[in-house]
Structure formats: C-alpha cells, structure tokens
C-alpha cells in the first residue's frame, strides 16, 4: 500500500474541514422544502426544538457569526467523522468475533 492510499483518509478529512471553513459563504436563502412550505403556507407548523445545543449551525457565545459558523462546522464535521469511524470499527469487530465463534 503506497503512502497516498494509506493516508488518503487524512486528506479526505482535511478536505471536509476546508469545506467547513467556507460555510459562512453558504446561500442564506430557504432550502427547497422551506420554500415550498412558505409558498403553501405550512411553514408556521414547524415547531421549535425542545432543547438547543448548536442551533442553526452557529456556535453559541461567539461574537462573530462567521467564526461561530465555521466553529460549528468544524465541530460537526469531526463528530460525524468520529461517529462513522467508530461505528465501522464496532461493526467490523462484531464480524471478527462472529468468525472466531463460528
């Protein structure tokens, strides 16, 4: 296995973090579902979340909204990375145990 292939996942993760850095440039317009909900008058049926951690991808307690968005993006990107990686590890371990038992 060459070095590029071996550490490719780091390159991929770096790319994801770089995308998150650009998140303040995202279009502020409502998305497809929100647009249809506004046009057809059912947007006000949307309920507030029962609790809030990082609502609207803005990290709480930071003065600059752009910085707060970037931080929220990086935090989320790393959490999803850890969750996906961890889940894959757990499932593979289950397979190995299944093989050794069988």
């Amino acid at each position, binding site marked *: 296995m060459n070095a*590029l*292939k071996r550490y*490719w*996942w780091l*390159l*991929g*993760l770096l*790319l*994801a*973090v770089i*995308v*998150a850095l*650009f*998140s303040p*440039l*995202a*279009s*502020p*317009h*409502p*998305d*497809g*579902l929100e*647009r*249809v*909900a506004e*046009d*057809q008058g*059912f947007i006000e*049926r*949307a*309920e507030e*979340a*029962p609790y*809030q*951690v*990082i*609502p*609207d*991808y803005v990290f709480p307690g930071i003065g600059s909204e752009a910085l707060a*968005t970037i931080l*929220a*993006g990086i935090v*989320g*990107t*790393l*959490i*999803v*990375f*850890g*969750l*996906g*990686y*961890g*889940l*894959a590890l757990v*499932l*593979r371990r*289950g*397979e190995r145990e299944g093989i050794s038992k069988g």
Partner: protein
Amino acid sequence: MHIPDGFLNTATSAATWVASAGGVGYAAQRVTRTLRERQVPLMGVTGAFIFAAQMMNFTVAGGTSGHLLGGALAAILLGPWAASLVLTCVLVVQALIFQDGGLLALGANIFNMAIVGVWVGWLVYSGLRRLLGEKTWATFLSGFAAAWLSVVVAALACSVELGLSGTAAWGVVLPAMGGVHALIGIGEGLITTAVLSFLRVTRPDLLALREIKRVEGAQ
C-alpha cells in the same frame, strides 16, 4: 430537505420511524459481513465530507437554495449498506446537536435521505456502470444521473409524507417539491461529479467496476 417537527402527523412519523429502524438495522447487519478494513476510515471521511458539504447551501432560483444530500455519493464510495449508515450518522448529529430536522421527524428524514436517496443513487449508478463499463465518462455520467435522481425521488418521498400527514395538498406539494429539487439535483450532480473526478485521480481503485460487482456479489 430536513423535515422539522410539526409537519408530519403521528401515524406518518411512527411509520417512517419503523421503516428506518428496520432498514438501518438490516444495513448494519449487512455491513458487518461486507465491510473491508480499508473502508473503516472511509466511512468516517465520507460522513465528515457530507456533513460539511450539507452546510454549503447554493442558490438555485430566485430566493431558494439547496445543498448536497450525498446519498448517491456515499453509495458510490461505500455501497448502499454502509452508505445508509453514514447518512444516518449525519442526520442524527444534525438533529441532536444542530437542531436541523425534528426529533419526531428524524425517522422520516432517515427514510428519505439515508434509505430512499441512497438506494436510488446506488441502483442508478450500479445499473448504468454495468451498461456503460469502465470508461471515465461512464463513471461521471452514471454519477451525475444517480445524484440527480436520488434528490428528486427523496423529495417526492418527502412530499408523499407531507400529503399523508394532511399538511399539504398532494396535487400542489408533489410538483412543487419535484420541480425545485429537479434544480437542486443539478447541483447535487455537479458536486458528486467533482468529487468523483478527485477520486479518479487519487483513489481510482474505489471507482473500479469490480467494486460494484463485489458489493453486489455480497448481497
């Protein structure tokens, strides 16, 4: 396309929760049997990229935006079973931590994006690749078509849930959702194709036809 709480009635929320729990549980079983060691970090990276890319809304038409859903992209990279799990991770983090998509509606959001979006993407991509073969343009064309259709069909699934819930009239919500997502799907297709061209250079092994046959053989 993340449905907030309040849009769906109890029956529709419950039915989509049951369907998603079954679908994702079964996918986890399949992944246990088919996942290769090198795909472990790839599941993390794919999820991370899709999460970040979902924050990058792009404007499609006057005053409306869309963002990558990533179901087709994940299916192309990982096969449909692992892709469903990755998209579920993204949606769970968005709902629990970022309050994007409701908690009661999470079952429907998983159903639309992690099951319907992934499987439409996978079936279109794997079917076209088998027809068109190993050529570079075949990879890109199949990827674009898979990405576009996965968004449109996921949007139609969302419309059906809104119709079943009595939130919107069928005759209005189906064409409205289908129409705007036919546009958003073009963005999905372009981003998916851009990622595929990056992979074509750095990890062509992930896009080889034998990968599709390996996943299908494992079914």
